[in-house]
């Protein structure tokens, strides 16, 4: 493992205790491409269901769920559950038996958000022991007793249990997965570099959320991302603003802006029938219009988005509160509500802001 991977580890592991960390060093984790790992490139494509499983020749990948849920009495909840895999050395690994190894690290982040309330929990494990991992058939992603798994009918269930919150959810993929970018290669800059990226744009969700000893029966919708790469950002890029939105008319929208010397915009618009269109910088505009002073500095929390070709003129507003997931590479992951030409809901993720 080179120094960059070591930094990645620290970045993710030292959740909550890295207040004095050098953020530039932390961001290096997403920018540097260590030798021996495969780099995502244009022309590569996605094949399912294999690509639901781990890619041991890539350095960093994730299984990423965000969901907007509602309680029986109108309570609003945001749920995030992410499993990261970080390769310490490029795979495939020879050892088939389980054992104590130093090949890869698994990390999971779980968060439960309500207006003005954000709870976060993290877990980490080494690969090779069976303590954490992902299998393709049946699809199962787990770390300790946190688990996302599919059943024989193709539906998924998620169980997360932490000190101050828990959730048990049933997820039904309502639309087939969509390939983002160029048949799954999602560029992150004009100069090349990016990741392999596909999403399940609509998961119908119901289940139970427990917080402060209270149980809530919940229902709602979610967005699930699969992404893998060995270098996400270019050296001049500081971070990204990412949005996944569910509009009331049944359409779904994923957009992101990479902030660098030259900002890079792209996105995917998914029609109600599941057909998807990749969006370029010329197709839409996305600009912050309001900021909020948060725990770790000023962040844009209201965004104006126009996509004239699809008749969209949206104002995207973060829920009131502070939605930072702590750690050395802390990031904002919080629910948003959508108004304007269409109403809706979704999630906003921002990296590279924290001071």
């Amino acid at each position, binding site marked *: 493992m080179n120094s960059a991977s070591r930094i990645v580890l620290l970045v993710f592991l030292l959740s909550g205790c890295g207040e004095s960390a050098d953020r530039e060093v932390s961001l290096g984790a997403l920018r540097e491409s260590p030798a021996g790992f495969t780099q995502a490139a244009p022309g590569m494509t996605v094949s399912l269901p294999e690509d639901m499983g781990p890619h041991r020749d890539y350095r960093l990948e994730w299984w990423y769920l965000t969901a907007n849920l509602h309680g029986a009495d109108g309570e609003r909840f945001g749920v995030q559950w992410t499993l990261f895999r970080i390769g310490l050395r490029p795979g495939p690994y020879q050892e088939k038996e389980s054992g*104590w190894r130093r090949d890869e690290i698994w990390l999971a982040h779980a968060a439960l958000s309500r207006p003005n309330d954000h709870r976060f929990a993290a877990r980490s494990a*080494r690969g090779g*022991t069976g303590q954490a991992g992902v299998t393709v058939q049946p699809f199962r992603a787990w770390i300790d007793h946190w688990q996302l798994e599919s059943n024989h009918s193709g539906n998924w269930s998620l169980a997360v249990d932490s000190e101050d919150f828990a959730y048990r959810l049933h997820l039904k993929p309502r639309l087939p997965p969509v390939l983002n970018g160029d048949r799954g290669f999602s560029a992150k800059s004009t100069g090349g570099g990016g990741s392999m990226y596909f999403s399940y744009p609509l998961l119908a969700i119901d289940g139970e959320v427990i917080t402060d000893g209270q149980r809530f029966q919940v229902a709602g919708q979610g967005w699930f991302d699969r992404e893998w790469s060995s270098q996400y950002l270019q050296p001049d890029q500081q971070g990204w603003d990412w949005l996944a939105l569910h509009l009331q008319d049944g359409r779904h929208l994923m957009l992101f802006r990479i902030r660098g010397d030259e900002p890079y915009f792209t996105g995917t618009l998914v029609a109600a029938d599941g057909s998807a269109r990749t969006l370029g910088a010329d197709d839409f505009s996305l600009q912050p219009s309001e900021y909020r002073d948060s725990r770790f500095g000023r962040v844009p929390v209201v965004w104006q988005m126009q996509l004239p070709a699809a008749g969209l003129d949206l104002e995207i507003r973060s829920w009131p509160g502070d939605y930072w997931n702590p750690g050395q590479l802390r990031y904002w992951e919080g629910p948003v509500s959508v108004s304007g030409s269409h109403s809706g809901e979704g999630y906003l993720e921002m990296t590279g802001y924290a001071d």
Partner: protein
Amino acid sequence: MGLGTVFLSHYRRHPGQLAGLLLILICAAMLWSGVRSLTGRAEDAVAQSRAALEPRLSVVRVDGQAVDVADFAELRRAGLCASPRLQVTFPASEAPEVVGIDPFSAACLRQYSVGTPVVDELVAELDQPILLGSASDLARWRRLSLPGMGEYQLQETEGLPSGVLLTDIAVAAELAPSGRAGLEILLPAAELDRLPLPAGYRGQIEDYGVEPDPLVEAFLLNLNALGALALLVAALLVRSIYRFALEQRRRSLEILVRLGVRTARLRMALVVEVLLLALVGASLGVLLGEWLASAMADGFQGTLSGLFSVDTLARSPPALETWFGMVLILVVVVGWAGVDLLMLGRREQRTVAEMEKRRWLTTPTLVPLILVAVSLAVLLGAEKLWLIFLATTGCLIGAGLLLPGLLNRLLARVQRRSRQPLLEWSCAEMRALCRLLQLPLVALAFAIAAAIGVQAMVAGFEATFARWLDQRLQGDLYLDPGRPLVNGAAADWRGRLQALPGVKTVLPMVRGRGLVDRMPVDVLAIDPASTLVRGWPFLAAVSDPWSALVERGVLINEQLARRQSLALGDDIRFRLGTKMQSREVIGIYADYGRPEGELLLPLATLPDVLPRSYTTFVLGTTAANKINWQDWPGQYSWLAGSRLRDQTGLKRAANAAFARTFQMTRLLNGLTLALAGTALALMGLVIFRLRQRSYTLLHVYGVPRRRLRRRLLVHSMLITGLLGVLATPLGIFLCWVLVARVNPAAFGWALPLHLYPGFWLQVWLVCMLIGAFVGALMRDPVHLETLKNE
């Protein structure tokens, strides 16, 4: 000419005085801050290990199979906060043990989550096989020369247990084939209140998680007290030098007053001088103290881990507070010395000599006598260690005050009875010296007493210990299997050992931990029928204790008997693992050298699971020197990795452990004695110069120069020699305090009081040598110039 220059001019004229003063201050600061640095670190280590205490379980499989990585994954998948620990031991007896932990789950155990940055270190270096450990353990590791060892990055890390190299569990697993590995899956006991263990597993207590006796504090208090004694000696010396300086400076100060310098300003200048002296002394002393502490750290750590299982000693640079504290202490020391100078204005009219004389005449012998009596009474009744130290200090101060007076009276009596005028003069001269050198003489007396006392205790301990060890070590060979023997393996080993050539008897000994009255105690289980235990000495026992042990009884060590106030016939309730038992005390045995309480039980009474259970064997042979037991581990594969030692080897190891324990005490004593001797020499030199006039007068009256020179030498030697003799009872008293009062309070065992007249002779000789040295420094006591002003 400024006031400062006038002040400095004194030291320019008497540079030896300044050097002496600074030397004493630096030495005292070095001793005190060095000792404090070590004891402070130990206190931190104790606090840290206390914070890391928690009842801990080791998860085992019900089917008796050893746990492996799949079991760990299963427990984690069940939601339990379990963490693995892979211990790898190597055949070489001096090799450190490699302990592999999983940094990702280590936070589950308080021991790795409280104040240990090692976990982050292991995560950050996950790509490189890194071993963390103390410098000495890493050095031992390098000597091992295992295959592929060059790949391992070694990093010196403080705060780790000695004899252990910590690493990532994957690295330990890579090393496992070169040694013997044992995997444990640990779990805080509290986890099972939250979740049950999955079927097929059970938890056995690995650590009760209770605090041991605060004995280590008593040990540290001992050391601090020695450091304080050094400070006391230094205070006396500094005061004597400063008071003496007063004599020399009074005239120049008076001139300054007459010239119009206000006494307030004069006092301020003196305060500045005191502060400067304290500042220089403290700064250099603290630096040297750190050096002293690091030089002694290894021995000290060995002692601590051997005696109290405190072995996470971290090194820390001297803090600003340490330095500031030292400056303050020295300000008090120098300030006390200079208090007479500060009172200058009020006592202007009296000369110092008059003051000295007055004090000398009026010092009542009653006050020190009362002090000694009261302190003795307190000492006899006190149980608390600090009270014992306080009372001892009282006795010492009282005796110190009496001692010069005693010397004076002795000389006065000789003076009265002497028929020869020169002898009479000599006596008067020595009395004058006693008076002038009162304080450094008292300091020297303390140092002598401490040397005699500590030597008697150490030598007494060694003799008692050696005798006790001879009686206790009945077998010829001692076998450490090098790994815990579980699931009936001990019985299997016993059979195999019995079959070895030349082996007559085999005695398995199981050590573990139990609880008495919520305090952890050691448990030792043996076979009472074995012939190897027949010769055991007891402090008190019922008749035929070994058969009573089988039926109803328990043997306990002196420490436990004292601590729990137990006598023969009392019942004692104790917990072994999860089982409570109650047995009758049928014997109390001496168990020197460590503070832990111990229960001795028959093997049959042990539960299946005893925390920290470890089996060793004692072998009785036909003739140990005729069998090649050294080759056994090579010959028999099942003995590979085990350690065999014969009786002499074991004794050597035990003695080495104690030599290390006392090394510090001896070093501190030696330094104190050297300090007192040096100070006396410096003072003596100046005092003798003051007395030159009387020697010169005698020379003028016709006594030859050579004879006077010899006489001066004899005076000096007689005073220090007599002081040595007079300080000897004080030393015996100190030894009694140490063996009969301090030891039971600090360690739980008492020692018989032994006297060593041979050593006294050595000390007296050293005293006379100091005297001779002081006398010899004078070279020629006759200086006609001293009569010039008369």
